[in-house]
């Protein structure tokens, strides 16, 4: 529980001891088997878990860690979980003797001050041993829990000033000893959780890692322990090498970027993330010096493991997607994360909301920093929505239910060179499967009234951002609703001359005299029938909208991504005809004139 511990947890770990050598084909088969086992473990959890955020929305990720605590393989997951599990497991590895590790054991940890992400992200893990009792691999699984037993239901608190208000922190705890569940311990966890589905979720997590451990054991038997170890070493080295080869192609230099969050949950404005990407030969250093460290900030403290994870997730999206995702990425990238800043907080800071912001801003800043040299791959792997509108109620038996709001439709799908933003979100969130109205309404007393894209909300550009959706939802019973608004003042930034995405807005009690716009963090009681209306900003644009092909603008207007007015005002494209008659045409001469005027005005503006 100190910066010293953080330094120890991230210290570079050596390769596994092995006498075997491995060829690249066998190594790739072992890697494929790891990915498959992780996929199966994650799927097992998805099928068996009881809470919607896991079983509908995939907010879980499986990984395989080696005996030295190195990431050996992962399943596809979501950025905030993908690269986080190794540090939590490393804390466990520091205590192997004390905790009497052995075959058939299962552990859990969630403590941000001991390598964890934020409290709701439980890492459950099972060690796998060779025939001589030596630890070889660890099957790990992370999933977001609906409650953590803190002062507010739902695992989040908008006004908690320390981690203890957020709930139960677990550095490491043994759940299963030599195959026997420790009922007393599991019952304690269940007792400290408001969510009735938690018992099913934790049971599913335990059985999933047990299944993964069995598969890993079979793999060790099939290929031999030495060979598997050699394959792990080979794959990690190869990833580091391939990442460095990519960096070597990038021009040397310092590439800084600044990103701001509107405010923390207490209203302190303009929380600042600064990143400098420094390239020297094949060495990339991500230096976060200069990022905010104001001690009065509330809830915008991103845990250390998350900061590292987000940086790597963004960088992995900016190189060849075929590079295997493992510890090699951490080998290849140096990170400077100032101790005591919002990106490596002092002990006991609240952590739940920091895993959203400034976590994603780390990735966004890296993306902006590298956008001049990687125009084809600079798509920020972020979500800028603060937190979704979480709706919480209690049923007739007094059991808590929560609609976690993973029903975001379109937000933050930004353009990059040659490609409009498309789909619901950035590629990195493509494994987060959004909740559906039909499943939600079968479970919760809510009604989804609309979730369509709003014309003109995405950032304009030569390549445009995807418009954001407007989600309108009605609650049918009295509930409490929790949210945190950002990106009203600092929306997702346009790149290389593209327009910013639209600002977010979130209105409560829509259609009543009490209707209001959420300004910041909020924990509100809503009566039955209350309607909320959340407008997402959409993705940002890339390069000047005046360069967009006028025919593409015409198509956008026909599809109502862009209005006729915005075609003229933002894109400088004059259209004749009407949408109703589907006979829109570009007035070429007027369009050229208008674009010329705009271009001149712009040049003159920037000259001033």
């Amino acid at each position, binding site marked *: 529980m100190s910066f010293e511990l953080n330094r120890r947890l991230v210290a570079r770990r050596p390769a596994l001891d092995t006498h075997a050598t491995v060829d690249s084909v066998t190594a790739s088969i072992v890697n494929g088997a790891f990915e498959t086992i992780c996929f199966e473990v994650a799927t097992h959890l998805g099928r068996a878990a*009881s809470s919607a955020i896991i079983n509908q929305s995939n907010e879980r990720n499986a990984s395989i860690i080696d005996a030295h605590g190195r990431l050996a393989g992962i399943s596809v997951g979501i950025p905030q979980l993908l690269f986080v599990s190794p540090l939590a497991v490393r804390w466990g590895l520091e205590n192997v003797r004390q905790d009497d590790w052995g075959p058939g054991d299962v552990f859990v940890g969630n403590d941000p001050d001991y390598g964890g992400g934020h409290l709701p992200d439980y890492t459950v893990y099972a060690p796998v041993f060779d025939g001589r009792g030596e630890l070889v691999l660890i099957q790990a699984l992370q999933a977001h829990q609906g409650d953590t037993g803190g002062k507010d239901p739902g695992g989040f608190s908008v006004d908690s000033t320390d981690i203890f208000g957020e709930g139960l922190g677990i550095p490491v705890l043994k759940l299963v000893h030599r195959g026997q569940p420790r009922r007393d311990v599991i019952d304690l966890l269940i007792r400290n959780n408001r969510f009735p589905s938690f018992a099913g979720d934790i*049971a599913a997590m335990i059985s999933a890692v047990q299944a993964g451990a069995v598969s890993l054991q079979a793999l060790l038997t099939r290929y031999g322990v030495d060979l598997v170890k050699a394959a792990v070493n080979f794959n990690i080295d190869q990833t580091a090498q391939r990442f460095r080869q990519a960096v070597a192609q990038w021009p040397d230099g310092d590439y800084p970027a600044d990103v701001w969050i509107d405010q923390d949950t207490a209203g302190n404005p303009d929380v600042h993330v600064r990143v400098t990407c420094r390239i020297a030969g094949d060495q990339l250093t991500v230096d976060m010096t200069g990022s905010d460290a104001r001690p009065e900030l509330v809830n915008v403290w991103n845990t250390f493991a998350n900061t590292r994870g987000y940086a790597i997730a963004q960088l992995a*999206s900016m190189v060849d997607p075929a590079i295997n995702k493992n510890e090699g990425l951490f080998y290849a990238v140096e990170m400077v994360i100032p101790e005591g800043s919002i990106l490596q907080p002092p002990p006991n800071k609240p952590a739940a909301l920091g895993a959203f912001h400034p976590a994603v801003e780390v990735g966004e800043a890296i993306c902006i920093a590298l956008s001049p040299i990687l125009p084809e791959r600079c798509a920020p792997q972020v979500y800028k929505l603060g937190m979704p509108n979480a709706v919480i109620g209690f049923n007739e038996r007094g059991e808590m239910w929560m609609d976690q709001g993973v029903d975001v439709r379109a937000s933050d799908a930004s353009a990059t060179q040659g490609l409009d933003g498309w*789909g619901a979100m950035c590629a990195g969130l493509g494994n987060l499967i959004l909740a559906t109205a039909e499943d939600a309404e*079968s479970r919760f007393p809510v009604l989804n009234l*609309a*979730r369509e*894209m709003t014309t003109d909300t995405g950032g304009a550009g030569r390549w445009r951002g995807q418009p954001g959706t407007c989600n309108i939802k009605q609650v049918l019973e009295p509930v409490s609703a929790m949210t945190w608004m950002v990106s009203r003042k600092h929306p997702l930034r346009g790149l290389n001359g593209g327009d910013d995405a639209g600002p977010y807005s979130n209105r409560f009690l829509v259609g009543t005299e009490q209707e209001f716009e959420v300004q910041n963090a909020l924990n509100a009681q809503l009566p039955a029938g209350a309607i909320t209306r959340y407008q997402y900003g959409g993705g940002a644009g890339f390069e000047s909208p005046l360069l967009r092909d006028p025919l593409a603008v015409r198509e956008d207007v026909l599809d109502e991504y862009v209005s006729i007015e915005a075609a003229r005002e933002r894109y400088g494209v004059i259209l004749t005809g009407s949408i109703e008659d589907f006979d829109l045409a570009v007035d070429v001469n007027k369009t050229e004139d208008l674009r010329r005027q705009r271009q001149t005005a712009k040049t003159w503006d920037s000259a001033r």
Partner: protein
Amino acid sequence: MNYRIGIDIGGTFTDFAMLKGQELILHKNLSTPDDRSVGVIQGLERLAAMEGKSLTQLLEQVEAIIHGTTVADNTLIEMNGACTGLLTTAGFRDELELRRGFKEDIWDVRLAPPVPIIPRRRRLGVPERIRFDGSVHTPLDENAARSAIRRLAKQGVESVAICTLFCFTNPVHELRLAQLVAEEMPDAHISLSHQVLPKSPEFERVSTTAVNAYVGPRVSQYINRLSERLKESGYSRHLLLMQSNGGVMTQEYLAGSPIRVLSSGPAGGVIGSAAIGRAKGATELLCVDMGGTSYDVSVIRDGQAPAQSGWNWHHRYLVAVPMVQVETLGAGGGSICSAATGTLQVGPASAGAAPGPVCYGRGGKLPTVTDAMLVLGLLSDESEFAGGSFKLVREGVAEALQEHVAGPMKCSIEEAAFDCWRVVNANMTQAVRRLTAQKGSNPEDLTLLAYGGNGPVFAAIQAQELGIQRVLVPRTSPGFSATGALAAQPCIDEERSYIVAGTKADIQHIRQLWQELDQRAEHFLQQAGFSRQDMQCRYQLNLRYPGQNWSLTVEAATVQGAQDWSFAGDTLIAQMLERFHQLHFARYGHARDSEAPEITGVRLIASTEVPKPHFSGGFTAPQRAAVPAKQRRANLGHGFRATDIYRGADLVPGHSIAGPAIIEEAFTTIVVYPGWNARLDDAGDYELNRQPN
């Protein structure tokens, strides 16, 4: 003597497998892409001639024609489906585009969006709302619906998908919208989501319905034309269609959801592979099907090729109906070879059946894999090709290879042909590696089963590269998807939504739903000419713990013949809950005794047995070396040399052939590479084994 005929139409060839008692008769002719039914009738005429009958005489004696088709797939590959529109609940028109957030590769920021099969301008919301319990929250606004329909009509929409929220609990709005569409656009094809996929959630259902609407008119038109042609030619029974789940059903049954034939051609091959593999004691199979245009790979575990429903992405669209899993690569005999860019590329562009490879002599000018195989001596212009439909010609082959490959690469024509062979081989090997690695299997543990006209040419060399020791080539290999269609059962697999706590479930209601499903299945099976007596019904319930999103299917009873509800007594639900706890324990390693499971759906799988080809294996026939028919100059990877050529027709069970050698079967060529040995098992099928060094 009655006949059953399986037909598979590929991009290049149309394959026929005719079951006459226990005898299996194969035929193959070129596909006719402009009107595929022409090729079907040509082939049937040929089969009739082989039996010494007229087409009408033959068809009068045919009990069943079973057809697998790729017409739905081709429509999605070529993106030339109907101009399609969507009517949906107001506020939800973008679900199809947003895909629940899914992107195929979370690391690839360069991934382009799929081509929209229904662009946003043709996705229109209509005010209406049904709630989860089937109650009407907002009545359908008919005026708004009519004006939306007119907007679709104005855009030239030919096919309308209708998908409203919770329609599967109460279809009243979808049905009314269908009436309005029929009034406003009398010629439009209509797809109703509660018929295509009657279950939640909305994205899976709207996507499946949209794809159904997009391919539907083309599929229906094709099937109608084919069935009319068959009728005109004297066939009076029902055309049975292979479904993507590996079962077969009638055109009438599939009328509302033609999407169920997606990928049904390859599904036939996989079903056939599983059956033949089981007969030969090979339950872990890597099945590779190389035809004229594509290379399909699938893996069979435990002798089964299970269909999976739900999260099936096909051609970048989600199609949630149950499907047998097959991966496709654009590599076949017709794949075009070109070194124009400086590096040699083979495929995915294909010469198809028309004009086809240069050596087909049908006007093809671009060199293909088949042309390279001719130059290498793996194929010959002296032997009959495709069962004697035609002979290959050399004219123009050398020139085409010279211009597009040898010239740019500055090598000889024979070297160019060998490089084409190497590249297509490597492409296929990599595809197999990706698939098996994804599944975590080591190919060395599998038996390779090769089929398709070109599969056996490459099978042994691919096996060698993958470390596989054993290769099976069924004698029926070239028409194996057609043979597989004969091995598939008529099958109806349906469910009805019923969400209720297990403790509150009403057995009368469950029974009523089973009865409805049963009557529907009986209706369609009887219409297809099957009797109730032969009908086997598996009654099932879907169950889950509260909060779970995925259900497990629990078997209630299997009943053969007449309806018998004695199993559905008062104690059934309690038994089912207990079975669910047990199944959950078996599947997920734990049961939650303190939680009361809930029922989510009522299911029925109705099927009926039909005569199938008899597959067998074994090596009891006396072993002896076969005698080659001739020799030919050929390059089997070790340079050109005189190579023994065997005629398949001369070979009988027990015959053994050491590589290097080439076996010419009527419809395929089996290459026995150096270091391999081929022998015929008791069924007359080939088994190739790697010889110890």
